[in-house]
């Protein structure tokens, strides 16, 4: 004890334990991202970079300490700049890991980054930023997105490492974990899983514990230095406080719109409210408004009956939310070589080419005839139009269809009923698992499905049975612009009981029943091909918006079915799915020349041709305005910068106030604050003259006059505090001058890094804030 008290211990940096603790803490913090992603493939690269930062830091610091004796104040001239080598080395390690994982192709030996591989990486990160805006949570772990996440976590690990190890402010490192925690909180809809919350809290506890332990052991008060030593209890307590505060605080904080990684598709559907774009949702209940139709597209197709114009598929059914789109995979664009979505071999097909001129249509999704082979968009970059092969959707990245025109070549499946009937049931097909997923259904729906279908039937028979439910007039389903008022609380069960609705309900209900029967299905949104205008082009209007069903048959792919009783002039002939209500007439064969027999008019009273579905009262009321993520980001950066500059400004102000005061006490306070800022460790139990003595060895090296000056200051401070009131010294310019001398000498005796940190991140201000908080916190009479 006495030996330590005599000499002035240099500020010790955190040991290797702290570095490893940082890595563990950041990893725990990164676990908060778990609910953000749909799969855990992001975890491995993130673990690798965090390990690179943590272990790399430990190794580099150990190496540096071996080269530069840390006990020596005046190392070689390069010892100061050498400290910078640690973060630079960590950045280099992170780059190597990123190269190995993401862009090894053009890297040197597959490991060392080259200009080419770095360019690839930059491109990947660019993709990632676009994917952020396209993905809703839980997001698909697309490569760009994972790369971006990895870089993000690596930056946080670097920041936490810098704060916790050289700057010894691990509590501030908790801010990094807080940032990680904020990601799921601000992006995941609904409740955030406990892991997002508990893991960063545990990480924070790890940080505090490691640091506390390092400090105690460093002071020789660590007792045994065992893992359950003195520091554990405070660390646990702090973590608990953080946990409770984290649980309580959100209740008082205004929340942001949730649900997407960035602004996402938030405003895509109902943005203009006049139906020039589609809302990628199929509700099981609602009401349609019927504005005056607007011409959306002019279509010049190579065939007379081109079929549906397909925009987007909805493949996720949640009982109360209806059908929704899952995340789009935008990793490839329409510029890619080869056919986009070729049909399976041996399938009956016909080729359709079309030239589409966009009139009023303005949507992210490109309406295309199924199944697209190639698309050329005029007036826009091909790279901006991404293609999701699973959804067979072409969508714009920061682009909409407004004012464009495009050409497309498609292959339309034309299966015969015999082909479909022969399609086997293949339970092992991954498509079956993915596209038959359903939440728990209302018992009446399950009962209906069991009654309609039999597992012994072929998939096609089952689909026909379900289709028959909606199309057989005997079953009493009627078209209506609004669904009936339900009583069961389940919109689907209500629709199946009341049998009133429009295309969304018909398509949604059929897809659910088909899935319930064990056959993969999804809902598709798009347009019926419209009416032929005077110039021979088909004109698609808002009234042509439609929803139908696609069913997956092994060996045949996605085949459209349409359960909605729509007007005959809009209906698209699907010979493999004849409507039961048409069955008594000869099914028209559109592909037989002259075979266009007049279709019986559907019940006109119920069937309204205006089958476009713009829910006037969108219940989910997504944020209407397109958020500007970049503006928000810039504003956030400014706020962070302002917050970061706050300690600096506060410290400056405090200094000015104390110097203006000029009392010995104020000047002494300022001197002590300077030592705290420069991480000169002085025991709190020292008296003024002891402190002056303890500072002397440090000062004498740079300015021997400063030793006298600090003693002058100490004596003045003593007299002002302990002296008789009559003899207390007042403000004295000589004292202010002495303070300036000491301060100069102190600064000169510190390394450049210490000076910068003292200016930007003054520990004394933070300590004052902490004391202020501690003084107001309830305290136990006897601290443990």
């Amino acid at each position: 004890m006495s030996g330590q008290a005599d000499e002035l211990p240099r500020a010790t940096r955190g040991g290797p334990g702290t570095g490893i603790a940082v890595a563990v803490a950041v990893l725990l913090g990164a676990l908060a991202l778990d609910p953000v992603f749909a799969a855990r493939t992001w975890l491995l690269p993130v673990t690798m970079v965090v390990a690179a930062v943590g272990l790399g830091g430990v190794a580099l610091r150990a190496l540096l300490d071996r080269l530069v004796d840390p006990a020596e104040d005046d190392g070689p001239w390069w010892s100061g700049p050498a400290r910078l080598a640690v973060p630079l080395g960590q950045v280099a390690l992170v780059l190597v890991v990123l190269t190995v994982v993401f862009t090894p192709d053009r890297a040197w030996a597959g490991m060392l980054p080259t200009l080419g591989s770095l360019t690839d990486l930059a491109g990947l990160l660019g993709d990632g930023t676009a994917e952020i805006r396209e993905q809703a949570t839980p997001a698909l772990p697309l490569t760009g997105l994972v790369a971006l996440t990895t870089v993000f976590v690596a930056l946080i690990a670097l920041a936490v490492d810098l704060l916790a190890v050289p700057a010894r402010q691990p509590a501030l490192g908790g801010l990094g974990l807080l940032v990680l925690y904020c990601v799921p909180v601000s992006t995941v809809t609904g409740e955030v899983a406990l892991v997002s919350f508990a893991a960063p809290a545990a990480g924070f506890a790890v940080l505090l514990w490691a640091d506390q332990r390092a400090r105690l052991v460093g002071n020789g008060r660590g007792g045994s230095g065992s893992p359950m030593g003195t520091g554990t209890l405070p660390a646990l307590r702090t973590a608990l406080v953080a946990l409770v505060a984290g649980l309580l605080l959100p209740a008082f904080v205004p929340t942001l719109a949730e649900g997407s990684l960035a602004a996402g598709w938030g405003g895509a559907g109902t943005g203009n409210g006049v139906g020039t774009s589609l809302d990628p949702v199929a509700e099981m209940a609602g009401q349609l408004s019927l504005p005056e139709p607007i011409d959306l597209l002019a279509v010049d197709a190579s065939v007379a009956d081109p079929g549906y114009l397909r925009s987007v598929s909805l493949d996720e059914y949640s009982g109360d939310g209806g059908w929704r789109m899952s995340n789009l995979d935008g990793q490839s664009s329409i510029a890619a070589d080869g056919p986009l979505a070729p049909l399976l071999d041996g399938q009956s097909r016909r080729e359709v080419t079309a030239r589409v001129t966009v009139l009023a249509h303005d949507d992210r999704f490109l309406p295309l005839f199924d199944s697209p082979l190639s698309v050329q968009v005029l007036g826009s970059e091909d790279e901006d139009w991404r293609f999701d092969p699973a959804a067979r959707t072409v969508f714009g990245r920061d682009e909409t269809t407004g004012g464009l025109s495009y050409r497309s070549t498609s292959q339309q499946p034309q299966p015969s009923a015999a082909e479909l009937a022969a399609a086997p049931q293949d339970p092992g097909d991954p498509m079956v698992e993915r596209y038959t997923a359903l939440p728990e259904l209302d018992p009446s729906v399950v009962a209906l499905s069991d009654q309609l279908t039999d597992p012994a039937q072929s998939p096609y028979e089952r689909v026909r049975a379900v289709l028959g439910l909606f199309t057989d007039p005997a079953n009493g389903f009627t078209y209506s612009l609004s669904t009936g008022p339900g009583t069961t609380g389940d919109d689907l069960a209500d629709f199946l009981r009341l049998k009133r609705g429009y295309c969304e309900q018909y398509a949604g209900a059929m897809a659910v029943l088909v899935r319930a029967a064990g056959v993969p299905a999804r809902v598709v949104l798009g347009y019926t091909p419209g009416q032929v205008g005077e110039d021979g082009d088909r004109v698609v209007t808002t009234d042509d918006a439609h929803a139908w069903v696609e069913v997956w048959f092994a060996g045949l792919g996605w085949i459209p079915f349409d359960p909605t009783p729509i007007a005959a002039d809009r209906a698209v002939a699907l010979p493999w799915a004849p409507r039961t209500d048409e069955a008594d007439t000869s099914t028209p064969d559109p592909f037989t020349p002259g075979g266009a027999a007049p279709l019986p008019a559907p019940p006109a009273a119920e069937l309204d041709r205006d089958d476009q579905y713009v829910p006037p009262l969108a219940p989910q009321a997504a944020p209407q305005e397109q958020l500007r993520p970049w503006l928000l980001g810039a504003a956030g950066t400014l706020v962070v910068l302002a917050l970061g500059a706050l300690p600096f400004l506060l410290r400056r102000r405090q200094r000015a106030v104390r110097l203006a005061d000029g009392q010995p006490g104020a000047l002494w306070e300022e001197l002590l604050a300077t030592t705290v800022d420069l991480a000169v460790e002085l025991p709190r139990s020292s008296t003024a003259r002891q402190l002056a003595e303890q500072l002397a060895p440090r000062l004498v090296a740079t300015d021997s006059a400063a030793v006298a000056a600090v003693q002058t200051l100490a004596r003045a401070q003593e007299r002002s505090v302990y002296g008789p009131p009559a003899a207390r010294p007042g403000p004295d310019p000589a004292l202010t001058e002495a303070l300036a001398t000491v301060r100069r000498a102190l600064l000169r005796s510190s390394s450049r890094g210490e000076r910068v940190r003292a200016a930007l991140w003054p520990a004394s201000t933070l300590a004052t804030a902490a004391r202020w908080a501690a003084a107001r916190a309830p305290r136990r009479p006897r601290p443990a």
Partner: protein
Amino acid sequence: MSGVTEGTAELRSDRGVTELRSAPRHGTGQDAAATQPETDADADVAAEGAQLAEAIGRVVQGKPDVVRLALVVLLAEGHLLIEDVPGVGKTTLAKALARTIDGTVRRIQFTPDLLPSDVTGVAVYDQESRAFEFKPGAVFANVVVADEINRASPKTQSALLECMEERQVTVDGVTYELARPFMVVATQNPLEMEGTYPLPEAQRDRFTARVSMGYPDREAELAMLGGRATVDPLTAFAPVVDAARVRALVAAVGRLHVAEPLRQYVVSLVEATRRSPDLRLGASPRAGLQLLRAARATAALAGRDHVLPDDVQAMAVPVLAHRLLLTPDAALARRDAQRVVTDLLATVPVHGGR
């Protein structure tokens, strides 16, 4: 000053000595106070303290810290407990201290058969005057050297300890005031424990400070062999100040300014001993009082008109350590009270200082 020399004769062999320079209450004590006012405003404690220290230092060589502490206790009107092995100069220190201030000094060699009345004095019936006459005991002196205090029976120890605290003696209903300055310098031999009644820790609280002499360094011991062999330095010793002057110095010490933050610091220190997990018994309020007094004296000796936390820190170990009781665990861990106090000094923040 031959009288003083005789006055230091051992009590056992000279129990009936009456030659006292400082008489009891009804004697010359009050007169001395009257002739020289104790509120001597221009008492230069530092200068006179330095003279005293220099004079004592000529006898007790190589022990400036111990000499200084003895002076501090004198100026703080306290009592000193010296714990050390025999022959390191405990008695010499006491004698030198007494002689520099030109006061009376009595030495009591404590033995198991020593009676309380030997210490305090006794009223005896005078056949001629047919009245009880008070024969003052050994405590009626400016400096009382209580040698091997742990050898006497607890009853006798208590009698002395009571005098120390009360600074008066009551025999047969008559109260006799003791001389001023009055200082007991007790010695204890920490090694020899057979047949002794060690002072209970609670009793040690009466002593302002405990000090151990320690062996002199090599040069001092050499010098001592050279000088002592021929002449006892005590014989060629002239007093520097008289008792009245000491009273003035004590008064001057009492006038030192003690700032509020310093009082808070003292209280914090004392409280810290009570909270320390190493201690079974912390410091008493009296300990705090005596710590502040000792700090005052230290500050005065340093020539300051105000007390600093440094003074408190300098006095904390000698004033506090002997009053503290370690827990069995701390004792097993071979910690001692001095170490505990040192550690507390390193943790208790100095109020006002920072």
